């Protein structure tokens, strides 16, 4: 329901101009109280010593969120979006430190290898990324609007720094429920889908090595960007993810291999922390609501339905009925 209810605040009746979309995307970040860390904490891989599930998986169920920043900038996560005309807007809510702190005091790039923190793009691909970024704040073509503005799934890896998310585990399955998109990770060794099938959140096969969930990712439709800075892969990308879990924290390291786009494989590192019952509701890390319980029972969070407004709204403002017209107006992703 999250975005459905927000429409009451931000609903508009007509499809806005492209520049308005971009401006609202920037402004909409200001509402959330965010807390970010500049430090990348790396959990070591090793044995799992805590609770296990009946099928012997480490029990890592619950809500988690990224430590560092949102999806504004892939390689300078606390640097804001280059060219942002709203200078300083993000500073108020702590989403980024720009322009308060110099680069050396902001979080490092999400690219941890190579050492320069840059995606090792081939020259043509670097030019494509720069073109997207240069047009982000004044998109003159549909392709310059990030797909998330239409409520498209954020894909791999952006879903991991796009609001808090829930992990549920079942026999032979790890399920990620993101704010916009779902990944079902099968642990039973079955083969990937046929390579002609391409998906927003790709196709995932996993297994556990001690405290580490290892996931092989293929069948990516390559339509989602890694952030508002426009980094991307091709449909041929092969990703191997390693989620190393500790009790209240985990570190995600993923190697991206795509010889059609990059000059060499590179590694993405994303630290994340558990959201517990003591975490405040902040509209980003913790979007849960308090469950309605019988008197005397301890407080319990639960996630409401997450249906993005435009998830229910085809691009081009086709409306189902006169009543739906008012309620289903396009709204930006929060």
């Amino acid at each position, binding site marked *: 329901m999250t975005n459905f209810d927000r429409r009451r605040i931000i609903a508009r009746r007509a499809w806005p101009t492209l520049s308005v979309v971009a401006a609202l995307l920037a402004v909409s970040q200001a509402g959330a109280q965010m807390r970010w860390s500049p430090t990348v904490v790396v959990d070591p891989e090793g044995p799992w010593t805590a609770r296990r599930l009946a099928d012997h998986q480490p029990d890592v169920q619950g809500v988690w969120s990224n430590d560092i920043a949102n999806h504004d900038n892939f390689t300078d996560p606390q640097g804001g979006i280059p060219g942002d005309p709203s200078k300083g807007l993000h500073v108020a809510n702590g989403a980024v430190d720009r322009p308060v702190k110099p680069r050396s005091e902001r979080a490092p790039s999400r690219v941890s290898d190579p050492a320069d923190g840059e995606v090792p793009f081939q020259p043509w691909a670097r030019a494509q990324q720069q073109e997207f970024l240069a047009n982000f704040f004044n998109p003159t073509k549909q392709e310059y609007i990030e797909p998330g503005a239409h409520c498209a*799934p954020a894909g791999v890896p952006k879903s991991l720094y796009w609001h808090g998310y829930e992990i549920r585990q079942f026999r032979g399955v790890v399920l990620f429920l993101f704010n916009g998109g779902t990944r079902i990770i099968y642990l039973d060794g079955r083969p990937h889908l046929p390579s002609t099938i391409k998906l927003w959140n790709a196709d995932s096969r996993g297994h556990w090595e001690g405290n580490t969930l290892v996931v092989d990712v293929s069948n990516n439709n390559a339509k989602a960007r890694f952030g508002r800075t426009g980094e991307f892969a091709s*449909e*041929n990308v092969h990703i191997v993810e390693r989620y190393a879990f500790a009790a209240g924290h985990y570190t995600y390291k993923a190697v991206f291999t795509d010889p059609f786009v990059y000059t060499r494989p590179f590694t993405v590192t994303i630290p994340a922390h558990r959201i517990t019952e003591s975490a405040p509701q902040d509209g980003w890390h913790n979007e849960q609501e308090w469950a309605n319980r019988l008197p005397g029972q301890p407080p319990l969070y*639960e996630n409401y339905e997450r249906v993005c407004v435009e998830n229910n709204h085809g691009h081009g403002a086709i409306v189902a009925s006169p009543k739906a017209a008012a*309620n289903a107006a396009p709204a930006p992703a929060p």
Partner: protein
Amino acid sequence: MALFAAGVAAAEAPHTNRLTGIGRTADGRPDLTGIWQAISTADFDLEAHSTRKDAPPGAGVIDGDSIPYLPGALKQRQANFAARDKLDPRLQCFTLGVPRDNYYPEPFQILQRPRDLTLIYEFGNSVRTIHTNGTLHPAGDNPEFWLGDSRGHWEGDALVVDVTDFTDKTWLDRAGNFHSDALHVIERWTPLDQDHLEYRATLEDPKVFARPWTLSVILYRLKDKNIQLIENYCYTLDYDKYYPFPGEGVPRGAP
């Protein structure tokens, strides 16, 4: 609503027989884990209907001859039917809602824990949680959900789910059957054997229906080798042409 719920509970006595030969969870409940799909004409028209250009014939899946609409609502249903090729929310890949998602002709997956059941509907990749941990419907300011708010409990081998807090934006089928935001659904999911579930839903909506009524379909477990849901974010189809892979000359979908 409370009186009605009690009435339904009395009218539909709990199935207390414990089936043998079905999978069970550690706490002894039927294990509904799996991928399921209805084989039924329910989504074309819940009511009995002869063949049409846009629907195969069907004997109907409701108790009784017709859905008991209030007079004004019946006119709305007729208008919906006349314009169904334009107004059916499924055409825009709107979240189908409850109960329609359960008999739409596309699979859905049930994943089960003691505290809840997670239902993932392939159409739109909609995710629904049926809470079975004793929590109640949300209190307060009348939230609205596309899939409603689902609180379930077990009566013998039947999972009984009370669903409230709906939007008025979903339809019940392709024939324009509809409801308001006052919809209240009581579902009974009853295993028949390892691979078949009876799904019954009783619908109450004082703004639209003259009295509660019930539909039922059989759900079949899909047993194809390596069966899995294939992500169907169909609502992205209207704009995904704007996101071609940006590199010209790069092979698309090379293995």
